[in-house]
């Protein structure tokens, strides 16, 4: 899978493509908001949207690390839901139990990550199969711990995740922290550079002596920790979570990675663009809601955004144009003969 990544070198022209594309999309969306649905760009709407964008951004960063290694992580729903369940179930409203609950959640997250890492990095299973299996196990844990019933979030967590500091929702600071950590580690440390290199081309990385298996496996563990962070924040933001809060995050988590310009074949990751893509998707929700169109249309618009986003990066538009030109040339040639 990864050796095809070398063929995609033309696409990896730099950080600017992902960030640029998403930024343009975001600007267009905001402009459309001002024109068509002014309430979608009001302060209240933006501030209400940001916590959800922040959670999606953090989840997206986790998925990005896995995708960078040419993998994909379908255990997002289980991992997030489990984090929500643990952080709300153990304390059952008691603030003093939040920290121990967080400890338990970290153990579970690392455990799930290690399982994924072992199955995919070490044994070499297909990531779709392996992470789907892990997801099922995590749902087993959710049912085992809670009987499928989480509790209302403890007041302290509600305050930490739901309040604002200097007028900005606290979740944004967490997302920025996650962005900073991921960017610095991946882009500025030796280990991070090796991580990215082994994702870009496994054969090359092996030849130069990198531990490809370890890098591949580790990505799943880091990802789980980010899902945990996202899940805990989501529990705080929503006050009365359900046991399956993560279910609606699987598709968006992949979408923001793709919209951010990270190739599904692995290689270079674009953390900033991923965060911006999360912002874009959530603002799109807000925009469509503000338009006041029926629920069915809302769903269609979101689906269309995914398709267009994926098409921008994955279709080789130059090749498409060339073929069209060839087709029109040959058909016009036939007419003359």
């Amino acid at each position, binding site marked *: 899978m990864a050796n095809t990544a070398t063929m995609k070198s033309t696409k990896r022209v730099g950080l600017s493509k992902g960030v640029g594309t998403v930024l343009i999309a975001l600007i267009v969306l905001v402009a459309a908001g001002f024109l068509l*649905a002014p*309430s*979608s760009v*009001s*302060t*209240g*709407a933006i*501030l*209400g*949207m940001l916590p*959800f964008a922040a959670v999606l951004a953090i989840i997206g960063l986790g998925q990005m690390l896995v995708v960078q290694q040419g993998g994909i992580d*379908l255990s997002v*729903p*289980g991992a997030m839901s489990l984090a929500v369940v643990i952080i709300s179930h153990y304390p*059952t*409203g008691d603030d003093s139990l939040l920290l121990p609950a967080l400890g338990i959640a970290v153990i579970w997250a690392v455990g799930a990550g290690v399982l994924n890492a072992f199955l995919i990095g070490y044994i070499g299973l297909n990531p779709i199969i392996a992470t*789907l*299996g892990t*997801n*099922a*196990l*995590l*749902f*087993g*844990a*959710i*049912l*085992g711990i809670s*009987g*499928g*019933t989480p*509790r*209302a979030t403890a007041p302290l967590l*509600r305050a930490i995740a*739901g309040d*604002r500091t200097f007028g900005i929702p606290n979740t944004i600071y967490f997302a920025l922290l996650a962005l900073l950590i991921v960017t610095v580690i991946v882009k500025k440390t030796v280990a991070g550079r090796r991580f990215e290199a082994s994702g870009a081309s496994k054969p090359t990385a092996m030849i130069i002596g990198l531990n490809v298996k370890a890098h591949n496996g580790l990505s799943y563990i880091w990802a789980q920790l980010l899902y945990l962070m996202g899940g805990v924040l*989501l529990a705080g*933001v*929503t*006050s*009365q*979570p*359900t*046991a*399956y*809060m993560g*279910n*609606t995050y*699987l598709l968006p988590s992949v979408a923001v990675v793709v919209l951010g310009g990270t190739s599904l074949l692995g290689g270079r990751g674009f953390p900033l663009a991923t965060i911006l893509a999360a912002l874009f998707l959530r603002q799109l*929700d*807000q925009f469509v*809601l*503000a338009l*006041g169109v*029926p*629920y*069915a249309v809302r769903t269609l618009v979101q689906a269309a955004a995914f398709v267009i986003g994926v098409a921008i990066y994955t279709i080789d538009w130059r090749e498409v144009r060339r073929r069209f030109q060839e087709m029109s040339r040959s058909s016009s040639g036939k007419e003359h003969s």
Partner: protein
Amino acid sequence: MITRQSRILQALAAAGIAGLALTACSAGGGGETAATDETATTEESTDAAAGDVPSWCGPEEITFGLLDGFGGNSWRLVTTASGEEEAKKCPSVTEYLYADGQGDTQKAISDIQSMVATGVDAIVVFPDAGEAMLPALRSSYEAGVVTVPYRVNPGGQDGVDYDVWIGADFFQSGRDWAQWTLDNFPDGAKILFLSGPAGNSQGEDEATGFKELLTDSKYEFIGEQPFEVTNWDPALTQQVLTAAIAKYPEIDIIFSDFGPSLVGALPEFTKSGRPIPALATSDGNLLGCFWQEQQDAGNGFEMMSVATGNDNVRLAVQTAIALATGGEVPEKGEGFVHPKFEDSVSGSPSAVQCRDDLPGDIYLSAQLDGDTQASLLK
């Protein structure tokens, strides 16, 4: 019969099914009754030791099953416990079974089929999937099992497709909200109504109910009609409400059929520098305590609630057991009516209640008392 270990295995199998359902290749029809719970028969004799056997409990001994389409929230947990408590009042029920469809229609159907296959005598079903559950209900009924769907309308007819459907009178909830609105907002109001998934019959019935009374044009319904879709998901509720706050400069009353799911979202009003509007909704300890907190913080608002209706299941259980054991069948009427519960203005039938020593997700309107509910959540 079913050991604890095998129950864990079944829970894992159920989880696997849930996982597969995520990838849209739903494999719930595996035929196994995962997560089937069973309780020791010895407990029942102690529960019914008081000796006063209810009139709906006849002499014939039966195995009784309670089936949920989706058991994954605290409301369902309390409801299930209420159903179990009700069933155990009758000593003729020698075995009690429970299955959770986990929101997967195929699993809910196979749960019914396998319970019928194991020789259960009466079942009470929460048919979340609506008409999709009708064939399974009918085949159970035709197999001679007393079949009582409740709350959600599965379509079909009493005595043809199942014994009897014990619905809930959601029209009345709507009318109660409307009456409160008429009493407290005589000069008119802008009303936003939030309900669950698109097209759910509960929300539609409630809307029909309140529109019967709020006919005057001074009562304006804002937002998507008949209701804003929230899927009863607190995260989506928050997004929808944020958008509504930004869009409508004036919202006087929010109608909602899942009050506690608003708690994460209502502070958005305060954050935008607007007062929290009045609420006409269903109860929950979390909501009651939120109301109290806001009152203390000077952001007070008025609210009324109807009971969330955990006790709907009791009527269904009584009916099913009466039919199967030969007891006296209770009157069905128009279905279960959600009694009015809290009213912050009149204080009747009750002022807003908050037990801040108990978890947020209990329902003080239920017959099952708060402390028992809290112990369920441990």
